[in-house]
């Protein structure tokens, strides 16, 4: 009975112009303050960090407050070789899986287990199942939670202790972050996409360029992106040291979410849709900072060093210290680790391995883009190549489209869903000193294994490089 009155009052309280972020923030504000208490709509957990949060809660004798809003998946260290069970090449990996399963059952939360048809990387399955929805607050003890901002949610990574807090109280206490709008304008040419946009941004403004801010990605190039590409763009907000990245929901978003497993139905859908349409930033909303980038002449990007800020065009040469955007010492360290020299053309670097997958680029659109390049071709001799779909649903879809056959005939291993070799957890590795082109998000020293040299790039660039046997410009192989 009081609804209309309340809605009216809330509407009257609205400041004249607000950003998407501010609208979501206000909607979730329970106790305002220097550090406000904010309602959390969804909590995700995985076997690497979530199990510790559940255990911490149990040790306190504290139940999960909103069990129906909490989800858990097994993605990080699960075996991705076919025919898998709980055993994994990661030492003690089975313990993580089994303890997570037991803790999830005990806590009464929904688990997407190893053999569940909806299993997959948390940030891939959440939008896929419409667990992520526009306007929600979503947290997970995983830095790439910001991925889910691509559908218009405020989603961010937290620690295990914060996850305990969110599980116990359904809230988090946080200081309101500043806002940054990054506008990409200019139509993208073929063979470039969201991954190249994020690498360009981070290369220009540094790995700390978005420090502590919430980024809204906007502009004509972003509006034109499909939902999966928007997820890729937001995925790397954390590589920019931002709290999160998000994109205003639009008809494309609503169409993507409609009818998915956990999407609202019937009158609830209509009600949600009406509220979602009011979410986009008002035309005259003011951001704390603005960055504008012309994306019209975007080229495929790739990293040469050991930070995502060490990204250049695939057709460029390894920069000298002066043009590297890093200190002399950091530049020298990166050169030594990567075994590259200033002036060396990126396309002259021979590679040992190619990896396609991860929460950044493990979705069906990513696999299609790589398969277009691989179709009728084969990886170069001596290159170890693997494709790990981001979710079990992505894998099924790819197989229905025959993409698995394209990957396999090209010489790629075709795996089950999971995070796999995006990071080295002590199990499978790519080998000491091996040079890898990878569709993942982090090229840190040792990220994919001790001494492994990682170059991050788009799935198309990974596929082209696998075929050529050296870092390659996908535009030279595009169909």
């Amino acid at each position: 009975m009081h609804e209309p009155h309340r809605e009216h009052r809330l509407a009257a309280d609205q400041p004249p112009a607000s950003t998407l972020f501010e609208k979501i923030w206000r909607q979730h504000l329970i106790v305002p303050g220097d550090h406000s208490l904010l309602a959390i709509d969804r909590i995700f957990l995985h076997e690497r960090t979530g199990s510790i949060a559940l255990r911490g809660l149990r040790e306190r004798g504290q139940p999960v407050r909103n069990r129906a809003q909490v989800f858990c998946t097994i993605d990080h260290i699960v075996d991705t070789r076919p025919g898998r069970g709980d055993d994994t090449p990661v030492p003690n990996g089975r313990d993580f899986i089994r303890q997570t399963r037991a803790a999830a059952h005990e806590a009464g939360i929904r688990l997407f287990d190893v053999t569940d048809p909806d299993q997959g990387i948390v940030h891939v399955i959440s939008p896929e199942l419409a667990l992520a929805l526009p306007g929600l607050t979503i947290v997970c003890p995983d830095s790439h939670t910001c991925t889910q901002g691509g559908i218009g949610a405020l989603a961010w990574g937290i620690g295990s202790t914060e996850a305990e807090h969110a599980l116990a109280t359904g809230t988090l206490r946080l200081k309101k972050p500043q806002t940054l709008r990054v506008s990409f304008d200019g139509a993208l040419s073929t063979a470039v996409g969201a991954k190249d946009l994020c690498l360009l941004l981070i290369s220009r403004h540094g790995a700390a360029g978005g420090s502590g801010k919430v980024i809204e990605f906007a502009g004509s190039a972003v509006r034109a992106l499909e939902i999966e590409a928007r997820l890729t763009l937001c995925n790397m907000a954390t590589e920019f040291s931002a709290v999160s990245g998000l994109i205003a929901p639009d008809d494309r978003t609503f169409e993507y979410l409609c009818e998915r497993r956990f999407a609202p139905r019937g009158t609830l859908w209509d009600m949600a849709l009406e509220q979602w349409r009011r979410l986009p930033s008002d035309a005259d909303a003011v951001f704390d900072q603005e960055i504008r980038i012309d994306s019209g002449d975007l080229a495929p990007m790739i990293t040469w060093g050991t930070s995502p800020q060490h990204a250049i065009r695939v057709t460029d040469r390894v920069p000298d210290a002066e043009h590297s955007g890093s200190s002399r010492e950091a530049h020298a360290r990166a050169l030594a680790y990567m075994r590259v020299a200033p002036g060396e053309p990126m396309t002259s670097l021979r590679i040992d391995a190619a990896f396609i997958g991860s929460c950044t680029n493990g979705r069906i659109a990513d696999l299609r883009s790589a398969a277009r390049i691989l179709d009728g071709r084969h990886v170069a001799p001596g290159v170890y190549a693997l494709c790990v779909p981001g979710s079990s649903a992505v894998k099924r879809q790819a197989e229905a489209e025959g993409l698995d056959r394209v990957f396999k005939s090209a010489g790629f291993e075709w795996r089950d869903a999971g995070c796999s070799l995006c990071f080295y957890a002590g199990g499978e590795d790519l080998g000491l000193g091996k040079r890898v082109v990878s569709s993942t998000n982090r090229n840190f020293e040792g990220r994919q294994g001790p001494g492994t040299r990682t170059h991050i790039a788009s799935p198309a660039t990974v596929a082209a490089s696998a075929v050529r046997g050296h870092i390659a410009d996908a535009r030279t192989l595009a169909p």
Partner: protein
Amino acid sequence: MTGRPFETLTALAAPLLRDNIDTDTIIPSREIKSVGKHGLAQGLFAGWRYQGAGREPDPQFILNQVPYAQAQILLAGRNFGCGSSREHAVWALCEYGIRAIVAQSFAPIFFENCVNNGLLAAALPAAALHALADAILAAPQLHPLTLDLQHSELRTPSTGAIPFAIDPDARERLLEGLDAIALTLKNIADIDDFHGRDRRLRPWVYLRQCP
């Protein structure tokens, strides 16, 4: 959830003034061997601290050098703790014996993890940080660092007081060792009110209990 208030600390600081030291570097994933918060000190900075894949200390790494093996404070560059959200990075630092980090800036998730574990993360401008590191490297014994959180300043016998920056709420939580969950549960009536109201305003948010 700290339970242990941060008191004034006087200790040796090890300068490691690199930018973007990530949590994979602080604790590589391969060093996280069990479900829990312990057994991580050996894996701290494993990729830098040891030679090759074994456990032979690399003499080039500062924490393997006399006197810095005794350091309880780390000095670092910009964006310390970027990358993965793994709280294991903070647990590893604490278990190893590091009690404070003074850096140019911190990645957001890492900073929260520090506060939640009673590890002081204090920010200092680049120039002050470099001057401090130079002084320490020239004569470590003469420059024990005192971190006074009550006054948000650091001191060495030769430099006098230098103010550092820390978020006021984080400072208070560190000083009092407050348990964040217990604190929030004091607001339980507000939380209940909110959810009651929100279920009517946004019923589409709330899912049915899983079977």
